[in-house]
C-alpha cells in the first residue's frame, strides 16, 4: 500500500531532510509492519515500485519532489499504519489547519474480513446490512469485496461517531451467520429471539451514535477528552469525584445474593473442593 505526499520537499531546504528522517523513524516504530520504504517519487523510483506491484504509487501523477511511502503487509495492517502516518504528516508538514474543521463520511465498509486462522469474522458487528444484493452475492464468490451499510463520521481526522443500517430480513441474517461459521443450531440458540423477530416483520432500521464529549473537545481545541468530561476518570479507571470504585457493603452483597470469588492462581489451582473466599 502506498501513500503519496505532494509537495513534501521545498527547494534546498534542510528541513525536508530532517522530516524525512523523522518519518522513517515513525514507520520503524509501528508494530507489525513487515517492510516500509520511503522514497522520492522520481521516475526511477516509481519504476522500481511498479515492478514490486505498487503501480498505484504513480496513479496521482507524483513528481520528483513528492514523497512516496510504501508499506508491505496485509492491506488492513498497512492501511492502519499509513492512516496514522497521514495524520502525523498533516501536522509535521503544516497541512492541518487549526482554525477550521473538516468533516467527512466514511462509508461502504467491508462486510466481513479474514481471521488469522483462515475463517471469516464480521468487520464491525454481525448485524450490519450488506450494501446491496450484489454484496450479499459476493459472499459466495469473493467475500472480502462485499460492502456493508456502515458509516463513520470523521472530523479533523478523528472518529466522531458511527453507525449502521441493520439487517431486517431473516434469510439475510442467517446467511451472515453461515458466513461467520455459526451453525443453524447455534444461531437459533444464541439469536433465536432476533431471528424470530425478523421473521415477524422488522422494518428497515439503522442508527448512529456520536460522542458528544469528543465533539466538545474538538470545539474546545483540546485533544484530551478528560478536559471536557464532567466526571473524568483517572487512567486506572478511578473516579475521584464519586470515589468509585469503593468497597461494597457486605449487607448489600448479601441482599443481592453476590459473593466475590478469588481468581485461581497457578501456584494453587482451583478445585471443586476448595473453600470459597469471603466477600470483600
Amino acid at each position: 500500500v502506498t501513500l503519496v505526499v505532494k509537495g513534501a520537499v521545498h527547494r534546498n531546504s534542510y528541513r525536508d531532510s530532517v522530516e524525512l528522517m523523522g518519518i522513517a523513524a515513525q514507520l520503524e516504530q509501528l508494530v507489525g509492519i513487515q517492510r516500509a520504504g520511503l522514497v522520492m517519487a522520481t521516475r526511477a523510483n516509481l519504476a522500481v515500485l511498479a515492478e514490486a506491484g505498487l503501480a498505484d504509487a504513480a496513479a496521482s501523477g507524483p513528481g520528483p519532489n513528492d514523497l512516496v511511502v510504501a508499506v508491505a503487509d496485509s492491506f488492513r495492517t498497512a492501511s492502519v499504519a499509513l492512516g496514522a502516518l497521514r495524520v502525523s504528516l498533516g501536522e509535521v508538514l503544516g497541512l492541518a489547519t487549526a482554525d477550521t474543521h473538516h468533516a467527512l463520511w466514511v462509508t461502504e465498509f467491508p462486510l466481513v474480513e479474514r481471521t488469522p486462522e483462515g475463517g471469516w469474522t464480521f468487520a464491525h458487528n454481525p448485524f450490519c446490512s450488506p450494501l446491496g444484493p450484489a454484496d450479499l452475492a459476493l459472499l459466495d464468490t469473493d467475500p472480502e469485496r462485499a460492502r456493508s451499510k456502515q458509516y463513520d463520521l470523521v472530523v479533523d481526522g478523528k472518529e466522531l461517531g458511527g453507525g449502521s443500517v441493520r439487517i431486517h430480513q431473516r434469510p439475510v441474517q442467517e446467511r451472515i451467520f453461515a458466513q461467520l461459521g455459526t451453525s443453524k443450531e447455534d444461531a437459533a440458540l444464541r439469536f433465536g429471539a432476533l431471528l424470530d423477530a425478523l421473521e415477524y416483520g422488522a422494518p428497515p432500521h439503522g442508527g448512529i451514535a456520536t460522542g458528544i464529549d469528543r465533539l466538545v473537545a474538538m470545539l474546545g481545541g483540546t485533544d484530551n477528552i478528560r478536559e471536557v468530561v464532567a466526571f473524568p476518570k483517572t487512567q486506572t479507571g478511578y473516579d475521584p469525584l464519586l470515589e468509585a470504585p469503593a468497597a461494597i457493603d457486605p449487607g448489600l452483597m448479601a441482599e443481592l445474593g453476590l459473593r466475590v470469588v478469588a481468581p485461581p492462581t497457578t501456584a494453587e489451582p482451583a478445585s471443586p473442593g476448595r473453600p470459597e473466599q469471603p466477600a470483600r
Partner: protein
Amino acid sequence: VATADVGGLPGGILIGGVTDLRQTGIRPGMAFVPSADGWSIPSAGVGIDASRAATWSPTLPAAASLRLTAELARTVAAARRHAADRAPAGGLAPMLSGSDRGGDRGGDPWLTRARALIGSQLEALRLGDVAAAMAPTVGLMGLGVGLTPSGDDYLVGLLAGMEATDDPPRHGLAAVIAGHAPLRTTAIGAAALGQASRGAFAERLHDVLVALARGRLDQLAVPIERAMTYGATSGSDTLVGLFAALDVAIARSQRRPGAAA
C-alpha cells in the same frame, strides 16, 4: 547556509562562531535574498555581510590530483576497507565491501537495481565506451532512498573521482547528467548533480581526495569518516561512486602499454 563544521559547500555560506544556527534566529526552510553587501534572511531579521567573508573554491585543488599508480590502488583499497567497516546499513553501503557486507538486505529492490546499473556503467567506462555508459547513468539519477537519492550521491562521487584523475569521459558524462537531472530527480539532488557536473564538490570530498593523493594510510581515517557522516547514507553512497571512478581509471591505465605493475 550552514555552520562552519559542515565544511565548504558549492553554493554554500558558512557562518563561523556558532554551533547551532537557531542561535542566530535562522530556521530551516527560511528564504534568503541578495542584499547590497551580501545576503539577508528577512524572516529571521538577519543580514549576512559578505564583504569581509573568506571565500573558498569548490573546484578541486591541485593537491587532490591523483596519479594512477599501483600505490594509489593500494591506498584506495585501504580507504574502502576503512569506509566499509563503518558504513551505515542503508543505501549503497553494501557495495563498499568486496565481501558485500549485509548482502542485498533481503532483496532491497533499490540496491538490486542500482547494483545492476552501476555494473553496466562501470563495465562501459572500463572499456572507454562512454556512449554505452550513458543509459545506466541516466537510470541511476533519482534512484534510491533519501532526499538526494542514493544514485545521485553515487554520481557526485563518481564525477569527483573522474575529475581528480582527469578522466576524459567525465566531460561527456557530466553533460548528460546536467541535462537530465532537473527532470529525473529531486530539486536538491539536481542541484548537487549540477554542481558536480561543473566540477564543484564539497570540501569533505576534497579532503578525501587530498588524503588519497598523499598516500598516507594513517591520514585517511579522519577525512573518510567525516565524509561518511554527511546525511543518513549520502556520505557512504558518495564514496561508493568515488572509489568506483578510481578503480575504473586505475584498471584502464594498467591495460595501457608500459603501465606500472
